């Protein structure tokens, strides 16, 4: 990771204007978005969008031809190119031929992607961004901090200063007055400009229609007052049918700004008369810039389904801390990382892809149904292939990949940690490791790992000989064996014997999430061999990340690497894998487990772990079990927001992990519960460690521990 990049992160998280504005927005957005979608079937809507956009991505060439034919028939000129330089050249020539001295633009990310303003300005042409936020950052000489709200990082005082210094002295930090001032200054520009440049939100092939939405009304002026209108349209904006605009126009305003409809929508299908009676010159530039290539990539094709609403930014626990500037580019946030990798260069995404903590929030809200974290992982994998992994990382994975060495090192660590250990925690680490324990204590490595202690448990012989295999995962095995012991106790109560296949090793998630797919594949193979050796009804794990690895990632890793031979057994395993709470829920429902009657165990709060809620879709199961055990659940604010752990993420980016955790701790404290319960040992490590650092009396436990003693 580049030092400059790390510095930009530190700068961003310590900028209270930025984190304050983005934080408040993300909190408000969650509620207002839901309200905007009231009465709509979001799943059905996004399925329709994804299907229509995916169709378009599969027929790009055909739709581009049809669009061209239809708009040309009405007198519009179309220029189609893959080369950003040719786009700039076309517009510059057009400007020269028509004596254009001044251009007004409504927001167009495609134009920003190719740095059009700079080129026009170098040629002596005045370019005015007319979207208020875009104008502010243009004057300030900055890049957008958010795709929809480009100047969200600036206070009114800063805006007033920029206006005073760049436009006219004496502007006060009064928002309505600043807006009025902008209106007045911009009005002159609108009336004087000879050329208007816009983007388009949709380009309909069957009718040759451009759909442009704005709230400020600037696109209406840009397409009405100047005699030349140039629309720069990325090929991903193409859709087949006019009726395809319905789902997009239904979702876009709701997902972008929680509005039912954007203030102004213009549908332009050909030249219209100018104010002097002449006919407008209308030019559409169909810009490829690797979009065709993207649409042909089996993994990244789905990124073409993006409608640029930026909801993935709005729900991202990382984005609300760092904002758009750390991305250093035009496209920001989750989808921005992917677009940058394609429209700029894969290498340009090297640092920014590491920002994704893989919590999956964006997957739930994306109206284009894009698996953004999945695509970011794929970027990581390709970067690792292209550039190799960093040396230290490689060394670690070579150890992880050697199960015996890995396990003996963990045992050795138990001895070495002694001088640093206080109870069950390590609160300080020396030297360069110190930042790992700066914001949270780490768990001490257990004296005896679960793989040893489990052998000593006397399990009653199962009546019906039912056996399940337990996949512990590294944290339960080596740091929290008591969680595994509780699980055995519960299963025994249901008359099930738990086996612990000795050959099991790291689930491979750390390697996979770092792009080291070969390592992950080796872990997968070792685990599949170990876990399929015994005849068991289920393979259970009490770590959602491990569960997802076993259930989903093994298959996906093999697929990515083309190791098709390994797929049948990976799928065989996947079918047997279940998370702890879902299994217990099944056993309770089947009457095989019974809670003690009439218990009142007091108040707890429950934290949803990312993988459990959003990948395994189990959020009610643990809550119901805890309630039936006798607990009263005091829901915390943003219960399903990531705790900042993200596996090795918290080690790689403690600058971000720490403030995310801080928010979680505040929400836990505000719930008023003396106990926080969760289903993931990783979350336990992060949250328990954070509370320990703050000397809090709030206890943190895994659901398995809370249930073990409450069953008959």
């Amino acid at each position, binding site marked *: 990771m580049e030092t400059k990049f790390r510095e930009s992160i530190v700068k961003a998280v310590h900028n209270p204007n930025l984190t304050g504005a983005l934080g408040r927005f993300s909190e408000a957005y969650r509620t207002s978005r839901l309200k905007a979608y009231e009465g709509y079937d979001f799943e059905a809507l996004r399925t329709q969008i994804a299907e229509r956009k995916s169709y378009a991505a599969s027929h790009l060439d055909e739709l581009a031809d049809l669009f061209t034919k239809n708009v040309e028939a009405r007198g519009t000129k179309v220029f189609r190119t893959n080369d950003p330089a040719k786009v700039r050249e076309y517009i510059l020539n057009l400007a020269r031929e028509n004596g254009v001295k001044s251009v007004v633009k409504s927001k167009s990310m495609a134009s920003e992607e190719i740095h059009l303003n700079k080129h026009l300005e170098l040629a002596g042409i005045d370019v005015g961004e007319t979207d208020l936020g875009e104008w502010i950052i243009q004057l300030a000489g900055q890049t957008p901090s958010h795709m929809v709200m480009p100047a969200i990082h600036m206070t009114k005082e800063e805006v007033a200063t920029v206006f005073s210094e760049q436009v006219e002295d004496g502007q006060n930090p009064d928002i309505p007055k600043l807006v009025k001032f902008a209106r007045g200054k911009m009005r002159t520009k609108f009336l004087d400009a000879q050329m208007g440049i816009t983007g388009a939100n949709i380009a309909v092939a069957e009718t040759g229609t451009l759909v442009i939405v704005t709230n400020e009304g600037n696109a*209406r002026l840009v397409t*009405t007052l100047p005699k030349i209108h140039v629309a720069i349209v990325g090929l991903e904006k193409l859709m087949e049918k006019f009726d395809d605009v319905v789902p997009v*126009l239904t979702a876009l305003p709701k997902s972008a700004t929680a509005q*039912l409809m954007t203030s102004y929508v*213009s*549908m332009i299908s050909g030249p219209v008369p100018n104010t002097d009676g002449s006919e407008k010159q209308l030019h559409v530039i169909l810009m490829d810039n690797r979009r065709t290539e993207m649409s042909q990539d089996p993994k990244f094709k789905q990124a073409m389904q993006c409608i640029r609403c930026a909801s993935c930014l709005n729900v991202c626990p990382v984005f609300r801390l760092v904002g758009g500037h750390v991305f250093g580019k035009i496209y920001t946030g989750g989808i921005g990382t992917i677009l940058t990798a394609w429209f700029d260069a894969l290498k340009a995404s090297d640092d920014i892809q590491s920002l994704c903590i893989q919590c999956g929030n964006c997957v739930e809200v994306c109206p284009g149904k894009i698996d953004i974290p999945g695509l970011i992982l794929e970027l990581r994998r390709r970067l690792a292939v292209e550039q190799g992994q960093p040396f230290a990382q490689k060394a670690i994975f070579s150890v992880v990949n050697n199960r015996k060495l890995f396990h003996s090192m963990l045992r050795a660590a138990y001895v070495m940690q002694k001088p640093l250990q206080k109870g069950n925690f390590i609160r300080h680490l020396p030297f360069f490791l110190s930042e790992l324990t700066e914001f949270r204590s780490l768990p001490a490595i257990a004296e005896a790992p679960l793989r040893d202690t489990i052998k000593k448990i006397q399990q009653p012989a199962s009546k019906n000989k039912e056996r399940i295999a337990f996949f512990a995962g590294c944290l339960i095995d080596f740091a929290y064996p008591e969680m595994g012991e509780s699980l055995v106790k519960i299963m025994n109560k249901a008359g099930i014997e738990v086996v612990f296949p000795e050959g099991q090793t790291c689930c491979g998630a750390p390697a996979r999430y770092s792009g080291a797919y070969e390592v992950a594949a080796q872990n997968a193979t070792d685990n599949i061999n170990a876990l399929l050796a015994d005849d068991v009804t289920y393979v259970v794990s009490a770590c959602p990340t491990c569960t997802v690895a076993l259930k989903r990632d093994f298959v996906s890793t093999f697929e990515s690497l083309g190791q098709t031979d390994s797929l049948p057994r990976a799928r065989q395993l996947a079918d047997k894998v279940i998370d702890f709470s879902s299994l217990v829920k099944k056993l309770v429902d089947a009457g095989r487990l019974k809670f003690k009657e009439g218990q009142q165990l007091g108040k707890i709060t429950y934290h949803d772990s990312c993988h459990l809620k959003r990948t395994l879709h189990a959020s009610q199961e643990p809550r119901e079990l805890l309630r039936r055990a006798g607990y009263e659940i005091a829901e915390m604010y943003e219960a399903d927001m990531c705790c900042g752990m993200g596996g090795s993420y918290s080690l790689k980016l403690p600058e971000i992990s720490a403030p995310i955790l801080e928010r979680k701790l505040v929400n836990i404290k505000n719930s008023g519960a003396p106990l926080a319960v969760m289903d993931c040992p990783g979350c336990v490590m992060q949250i328990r460690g954070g509370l320990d650092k703050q000397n809090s009396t709030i206890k943190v436990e895994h659901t398995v521990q809370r249930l073990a003693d409450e069953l008959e």
Partner: protein
Amino acid sequence: MDGVFETFKLRAEAVSAEVHRFSHKNEALAFILNHLNNAGVRDAPQDYAVWASCPFLDGLDQQQISTQVPGLIFAVNREVSALAKVGISQLDWAIANTGSLMQDAALVDQRLVSTLPLIHIALVRSDRLVPDLPAALTKIRPEQTNYISFITGPSRTADIERVLTIGVHGPEKLIIIFYDVPGSVN
């Protein structure tokens, strides 16, 4: 009809538009003229009112109306629109569930009077109300016109500190006036 109208009114008002309904065209006209006078429209730059040609004006004596409000101009062009305080136009359809208006806006006058002045008065026939966007898109098709406009509330921005501010580039006030047409199915 009334349920749909109520939905429209609710949605449009939720995005800061004003909504009125008159059972006679003459009442609507009286309301508009009164409003123009109250808004300070006069025969002076910055204070004109511009009224784009529309079916509502059919059969009305424009010259006579102009005498009632000095500064009310029917010969719309770019220059007077830029100097007008109020713009009046007729929109073809209203969409209930988003509180939106829809118009064939290929003629530039229709856009000049609804973008440049501070106040936009939008006339709509009461029988031109559809429940939603899919229904609206069956009424005006891109095959028929090169410019379709949708207007939902006044111009707005939240670009500074996310504070909603009305009236950035377009009108800061949108007044929607429905008028009933005798003989039409309401």
